[in-house]
């Protein structure tokens, strides 16, 4: 147990940008060159103390989980299977430069630099609950941009019924990809109305800093009413598609991980109960809330649907 905190600087992170970052011991994944632009005129100045986001009414008032736990206890199989592996191994990921490929049913497909992708969208702070399908949860102060604001720019057509996402596939930097534990690259998907929902964000930071590699640098999806694995990390491709896309966990165990995977205490995972969860840092389990407590905002997306069948 030498490395307990994933945010420690590794050689891979040493770039000229660090020179003016005072709290560089926090910096692990550097955001693509464009992020400073994305935050608007003030972002550059803020980089001295990290990132800042506009407070949001969507944030919970619950106490955020400690930073060491958020950055030291991760499921990111691309960097290993144990919870501590990503913090240990993700230093090898080069999160800059970074491009994202937009394709499928939209008017402006192309491959965009992350700076261009994010440009013009002020960062917001979203303090969200995160519920892992394994039965534990955290509260995470994300910094990000509503996904809808990002996607609209590419003008999805009426054929875009779903949005598919892909994680980087780069075994040389992602040692976990050298074994076929999942069918790489990691893939996820949302219905278009889920993707465009105001709660859905593309996160680029947490705790006032750019995303550490083990949390999905340089940008990852956050869909707070779904189990954590839906919130795909290190996104390199976004596709507007007509048919429900295949997803990595659904391919791996279709009877256990459905396409929707909404947090639902009444639908158990075949192998364990989903009725309760352990909030990291707490001793006693607490009851799991329908839609992870976001039912007020999202229940309408599923009206008339049988959520036991569409789990």
């Amino acid at each position, binding site marked *: 147990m030498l490395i307990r905190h994933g945010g420690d600087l590794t050689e891979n992170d040493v770039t000229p940008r660090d020179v003016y970052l005072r709290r560089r011991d926090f910096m692990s994944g550097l955001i693509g060159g464009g992020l400073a632009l994305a935050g608007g005129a003030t972002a550059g100045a803020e980089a001295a103390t990290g990132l800042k986001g506009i407070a949001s009414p969507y944030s919970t008032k619950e106490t955020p989980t400690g930073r060491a*736990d958020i950055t030291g206890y991760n499921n990111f199989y691309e960097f290993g299977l144990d919870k501590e592996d990503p913090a240990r191994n993700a230093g090898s990921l080069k999160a800059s430069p970074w491009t994202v490929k937009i394709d499928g049913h939209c008017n402006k497909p192309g491959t965009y630099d992350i700076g261009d992708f994010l440009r013009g969208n002020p960062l917001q702070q979203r303090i969200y609950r995160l519920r892992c399908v394994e039965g534990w949860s955290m509260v995470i102060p994300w910094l990000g941009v509503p996904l809808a604001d990002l996607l609209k720019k590419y003008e999805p057509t009426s054929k875009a019924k779903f949005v598919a996402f892909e994680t980087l596939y780069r075994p040389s930097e992602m040692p976990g990809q050298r074994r076929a534990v999942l069918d790489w690259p990691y893939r996820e998907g949302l219905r278009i109305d889920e993707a465009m929902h105001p709660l859905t964000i593309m996160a680029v930071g947490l705790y006032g800093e750019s995303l550490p590699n083990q949390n999905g640098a340089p940008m990852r999806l956050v869909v707070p009413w779904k189990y954590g694995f839906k919130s795909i990390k290190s996104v390199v491709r976004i596709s507007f598609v007509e048919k429900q896309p295949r997803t990595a966990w659904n391919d791996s165990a279709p009877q256990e991980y459905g396409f929707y995977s909404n947090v639902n205490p009444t639908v158990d995972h075949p192998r364990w109960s989903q009725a309760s969860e352990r909030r990291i840092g707490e001793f*006693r389990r607490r009851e799991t809330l329908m839609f992870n407590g976001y039912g007020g905002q999202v229940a309408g997306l599923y009206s008339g649907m049988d959520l036991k069948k569409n789990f």
Partner: protein
Amino acid sequence: MDRRALDRLVYGLVWLACFAPLLWLAWRGFNNDLGANPIDKLIRELGVWGLRLLIVGLAITPLARILKQPRLIRFRRTVGLFAFAYVLLHLTNYVVTDQWFDWAAIGKDILKRPFITVGMAAFVLLVPLAVTSTNWALRKLGPVRWRKLHRLTYLIVPLGVIHYLMLVKADHQPPLIYGAIVALLLGWRMWEATRKRINRPARG
């Protein structure tokens, strides 16, 4: 050093080796070094060490025969009892720290979650073996009946492996490796048993 003292020293070392993982876990616990989810970590570590010691217990007889070191057998009960202790702590952790005596949830888990059903079955079968591991019980049962009863391990250890295999999310490699070792150890016994059966009438 005379034979007695050497024996005692070796026995002490075996005892310590069995105890060490627990000490190590306790030490890490006290130092807050079990990660963000210490309860889950503890359950898992205790489960794996229980399984490992069960497998070591299964390996002693073949090793004693192959290496022609019959006195190794004297460690078998110690290792087995330690395995039981780890499994008992594993179960206790589940009941106390994980579920906090929520008997309704625990009962549902045992009935509804096949991996817990199998683990529980393995535990229940282990209890009579642990209880009969005193010298008094051994004498009372007599060696033949005692050995017969303790062949339950041939069922218990595979159940432990199946329990592990069933709870894994994506990577089946570790339980499969343990399973392969168990298959080898049980395979050796079957081979020995058939060999003896074939040899006996020839001699008689």
